[in-house]
């Protein structure tokens, strides 16, 4: 697919100096000032500088993940175009790691390059009206149909579905076995007949999410990820990466971030700019939240240092919990701090934003949008159970539905 990507044996590229040399070579061959954006991104992918920890030929060099910032810094300094990770966050954060782990060679070659460059947007067809936290209870059916599958069902809370070319899809292929055993994981073409996307308006007034109706959608078996009936195992890879992506976004507790990022920065700036709005109660709460945000930032930084030393800790599960709670408390404080301006709301017109924007718009929007932070990507209640059982080793909740065939579950 490319003449410039390196062979697998490239020890020089695995260190910082080697990466700098490669980056310089890329910039020399493709001057960012004159090269069209997409051409540059493709060349960067082919040079193995997209995500250096990915294998050679798939946008990486098999280098340590921690060296990516070396490349990013050099490219940013040279004014190279970025790949807009927010718009393509689901592909980058969730689909790509799952494809890398479970995809066939052909699937990886087909999907990863346009995914990374942003030519193809991805969405995630997981949640259903009857299966949110209990995702494995989902009812969307995939039935064998010649050399493929016929899919029928309804999905919900699908970000970017109206922009997406591809979706990762979790569907039930065997209703006669317990719920976790009867699932299979697919890649679904969102342009296929039978895929209908409808905006789902939420409490902010905008429609950031969608409902997706699947009616007789045909998915070739070549677009299956992992074995039939192994969908839950594959989905867990996606879900773990989703929590990392949400917990690690540019918000309080961001690994490697500086102080006062995200909502804390907005509130602190407002505080400094408007002495007349200050009260003792708000001051006490602001200082507490400042300390908690700093604690979350340092926890994220410590986790990053552990990862760099090859000793990942369980703190990642906690970062999303901190992020959700801090955002909700900070955005609530901000509305109060603004006094009469806090009573106003920017705009209730229904819009369909292309990117998730937690900190944009006004305080009222931030307050309402933050309510989703403890629901999306695993509710805080589910995450607390996960921490209690997997990190602390406390006994599991009794589960009456675990061994029953899915078709016999009360619904």
């Amino acid at each position: 697919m490319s003449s410039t990507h390196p062979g697998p044996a490239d020890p020089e590229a695995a260190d910082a100096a080697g990466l700098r040399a490669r980056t310089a070579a890329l910039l020399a061959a493709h001057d960012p000032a004159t090269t069209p954006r997409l051409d540059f991104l493709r060349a960067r992918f082919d040079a193995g500088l997209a995500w250096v920890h990915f294998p050679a030929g798939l946008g990486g060099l098999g280098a340590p993940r921690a060296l990516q910032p070396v490349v990013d810094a050099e490219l940013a300094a040279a004014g190279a175009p970025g790949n807009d990770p927010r718009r393509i966050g689901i592909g980058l954060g969730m689909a790509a790691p799952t494809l890398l782990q479970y995809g066939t060679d052909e699937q990886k070659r087909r999907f990863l390059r346009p995914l990374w460059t942003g030519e193809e947007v991805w969405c995630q067809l997981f949640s259903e009206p009857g299966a949110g936290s209990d995702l494995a209870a989902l009812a969307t059916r995939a039935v064998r149909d010649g050399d493929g599958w016929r899919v029928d069902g309804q999905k919900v809370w699908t970000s970017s579905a109206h922009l997406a070319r591809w979706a990762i899809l979790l569907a039930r292929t065997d209703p006669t076995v317990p719920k976790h055993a009867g699932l299979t994981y697919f890649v679904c073409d969102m342009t296929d007949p039978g895929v209908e996307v409808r905006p789902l308006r939420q409490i902010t007034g905008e429609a950031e999410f969608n409902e997706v109706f699947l009616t007789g959608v045909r998915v070739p078996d070549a677009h299956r990820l992992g074995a039939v009936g192994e969908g839950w195992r594959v989905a867990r890879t996606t879900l773990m990466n989703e929590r990392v992506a949400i917990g690690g976004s540019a918000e309080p507790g961001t690994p490697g971030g500086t102080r006062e990022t995200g909502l804390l920065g907005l509130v602190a700036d407002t505080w400094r700019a408007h002495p007349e709005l200050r009260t003792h109660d708000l001051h006490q709460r602001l200082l507490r939240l400042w300390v908690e945000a700093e604690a979350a930032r340092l926890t994220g930084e410590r986790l990053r240092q552990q990862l760099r030393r090859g000793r990942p800790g369980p703190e990642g599960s906690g970062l999303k919990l901190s992020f959700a709670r801090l955002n909700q408390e900070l955005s609530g404080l901000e509305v109060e701090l603004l006094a009469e301006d806090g009573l106003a709301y920017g705009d209730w017109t229904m819009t369909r934003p292309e990117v998730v924007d937690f900190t944009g718009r006004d305080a009222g929007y931030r307050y309402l949008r933050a309510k989703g932070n403890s629901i999306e990507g695993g509710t805080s209640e589910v995450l607390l159970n996960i921490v209690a059982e997997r990190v602390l080793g406390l006994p599991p909740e009794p589960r009456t539905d675990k061994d029953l065939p899915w078709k016999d579950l009360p619904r």
Partner: protein
Amino acid sequence: MTPPPSTAASAAPPDLLHSEAEEDLRAAVRSLLTHRGAPASVLAGAESGRPYDAELWRSLASGMGTAGLLVPDKLGGQGASARETAVVLEELGRAVAPVPYLTSAVLAVTTLLGCDTGDDEVAAPLAALAGGRRVGALAVPLTTPPGAGQARNVRVAGAGRRPLLSGEVTAVAGAAGADLLLVPADTGLYAVDAGGEGVRITPVTSLDLTRPIARVTLTEAPGSPLAGPGRARAAVDAALLAGAGLLASEQLGVAEWCLEETVRYTGERRQFGRPVGSFQALKHRLAALWLEVASARAVARNAADALATGSADTAVAVAVAQAYCGEVAVRAAQECVQLHGGIGMTWEHPAHLYLKRAKSAELALGTPGRHREALARLVDLPGPQD
């Protein structure tokens, strides 16, 4: 909208992990405490009326050389740093150990390090404290926060060859059982022999059985000058800052023990036909506590690293550590008592020793509220004008 300089993270990110050498030190201290400092013997010692466990202190301070971690080699210490000292304190907190480590090896030692160590009057007591041969105490109330200002309780008469100190200092931790008192007074800092004439040390029945406090009364007690008023004030403030930053590691240790012990107990204790730790209400509380302890670990390490590297960010790091870790330790100890049920209320179970240590330590070297007020100044978040 540009943040002031103090809100920008420093250029070199702090090392928030424990090195292999630090883990080795931890293992050695933990092994000693496991053999010598079991909770039953801690309780027995606390009831004996002795101010601290002298045998444990000897093994820890001189046997293992931990009393001199903060002191350079050439001054008789180990030439280590606040990072290693913090590891010792984590373990002492986990064992709620009754030894004068924070008061002698941290507060008294750092106070002396802030004086002119080229002066024999400073170097000799410093070497004795670093070697664990003598025990020192800084004669200020344990509640004194960093930057609290000049001591006014002790006055000096007869300055010159033979200064005589008079006054009273309350709530001095580590005074009972100390050999040497470092006394801030109106004209500077003085060394006073704890057993000397004119010195009365009256133990106070303390909330924290394992770190007792005492009232120090000086009546024309002879002292040796260590530093003049300006340097004395800087030395004491530096000691209080180091003490506050390192106390966070002790608080972390207290919280870690409380969480681990409560998780163990609720996983075993059965009610309503299953372990109580399988009930969601308890699981969520323990998971939330784990999250706080994980953050306390990062925050305490950040303060220790800032002190060790002399970071420009030290004041903020210490204030954050004290504003955060004190409350986490208290919450962990309170949850430990509550989730042990009736057993948590008994004298036999060690939970109360941890609760008493945690609550007292929350007051020590500035309450969380005092440290949040300090932060308001440090990071430019002033309160309302009135």
